């Protein structure tokens, strides 16, 4: 119960900070809109199979840009203050939950803009929403954890892309495959098995990240 209390407090802190400095979040929203605009300007008409890949690639780049700053604020004296007060797992869980929600909102925004500019190729809306959630969670776990590594190194955001893109491939391959089924591009008879594998990969990475984060956090 106490854990949940701490996590919720930290989550509230994340939301508060985000709304106080609205520049970051509005930057990401603008990034999404301009990307979509460029995509439609150049593609004109998007076939469903291209749509499927494009959607996840855009979400991938949005996720990197949104999450690279996850631990940038946590520097210097403030970290010392947190460190004496908090359990590192709570910090990571709060960040992952916050980033998952943020990514979920962003992916819904991307989907909405796709529908607004073109049309909606998604046939199985329930399944698509489910993989948006699972995808957001998987991206959030990977990027949040790796952002904490990158933040420790005082390096630019390219390092996050270099570290995370190869690691995200198992997740993105599963996502594209299941979403192809949601778009009825393929008849996937083993869709529940694929979903189970996706959940397993997500949980595996989340578990490993939770185990390792305390060592990164300790400074």
């Amino acid at each position, binding site marked *: 119960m106490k854990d949940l209390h701490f996590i919720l407090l930290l989550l509230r802190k994340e939301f508060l900070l985000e709304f106080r400095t609205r520049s970051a979040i509005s930057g990401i929203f603008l990034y999404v809109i301009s990307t979509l605009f460029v995509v439609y300007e150049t593609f004109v008409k998007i076939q469903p199979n291209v749509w499927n890949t494009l959607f996840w690639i855009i979400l991938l780049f949005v996720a990197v840009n949104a999450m690279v700053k996850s631990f940038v604020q946590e520097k210097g004296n403030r970290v010392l203050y947190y460190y004496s007060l908090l359990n590192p797992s709570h910090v990571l869980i709060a960040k992952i939950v916050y980033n998952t929600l943020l990514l979920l909102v962003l992916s819904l925004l991307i989907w909405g803009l796709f529908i607004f500019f073109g049309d909606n190729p998604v046939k199985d809306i329930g399944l698509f929403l489910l993989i948006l959630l699972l995808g957001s969670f998987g991206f959030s776990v990977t990027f949040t954890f790796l952002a904490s590594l990158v933040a420790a190194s005082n390096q630019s955001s390219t390092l996050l892309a*270099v570290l995370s893109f190869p*690691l995200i491939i*198992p997740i993105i391959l599963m996502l594209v495959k299941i979403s192809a089924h949601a778009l009825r591009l393929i008849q996937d008879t083993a869709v529940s098995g694929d979903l189970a594998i996706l959940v397993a990969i997500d949980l595996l990475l989340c578990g490993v990240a939770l185990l*390792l984060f305390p*060592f*990164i956090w300790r400074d």
Partner: protein
Amino acid sequence: MIEKGKIWKFSGVILIVYVIIAGLLIPLKSGIESVEPSYGNAGETLKIQVTGYNTHFKEAGNSLRAWLKWENGKAIAATEMIALDERRMNLTFSIPNNLPENTEVHAVTLLIDSEADGTSVLPSAIFLTQTEKVLTAEEVQWVQPGDFSNNGQITFPFRNILGETIRNTYFHVPLWFGMMFLFLFAVIHSIKYLRKGDAESDLKAEAYTQTGIFYGLLGLITGALWAKNTWGAYWSWDIKQNMTVVALLIYAAYFILRASFEDPEKRARVCAAYGIFAFSTLIPLLYVIPRLTDSLHPGSGGNPAFGSQDLDNTMRMVFYPAVIGFTLFGFWLSSLQFRYLRLQKLREDVD
């Protein structure tokens, strides 16, 4: 005498030398490379020319025997056998009017046996067509192929597409096994570092990762050469090949991460964490995803995994030593690399 601690290094080298000598010098068993023509009709007298591999048709002389065998076990013997040279032979079969199975097209197996070469088998060698059943009272001489000769030579099996490249089993596969062991030890040392904070564990993890990448590259190159000879291209964008490159990219990023730290203690900690995280994605990447998609590689996309029927006993005598030998050699390389890294670090500390 060899010191006790060095025995494993010497055994690794001896095993690799043995694998290279035995793996490259033991000849392939004789086999049937091709049959021309590879189709025929029921009721006709079928003349075919067989091209063998490592065969001695002339030398075999009278001991030559040949059969066409159906799936249900029935077989007919060749009526005439003329050896043109050691590798080519003309065979004549009188195909019965009524073929023994109730399908239109019959894929029959060709068996050749001789004292010089032992038994060679080519499954689905000839496709026989039967359009309609003929009502004749013909007496077919069905035989049971048997009493096979054994020339007692030590050979590797002949597989049609593989040919001589079957020897790559002793290099490509053990290199992958070795790579996984090396990455596993890198993770163990990373975990050790996070638990104990001993700087040597960090250097060991780095050394094991470096040798692991080296083995991975060698595995990739031997795999590409094998693919050129069996799949037709060095790179066929096969899921297994792609995922392998991704795995190597993940470990290449490990070194970029290492290079971006000034403080050695912080570097060791963050890189150990990344190493463990990376290793945990390796399992879905190399062993789960390739099984879900179509792939040419054994063990993925419905292809049989590396199973018991892929190795015969002669191959096992070389394959298992190869796995042990390459793994031990990898550990030796890693320990040398570790000592080099430790010296380098000492020099940095002195400067």
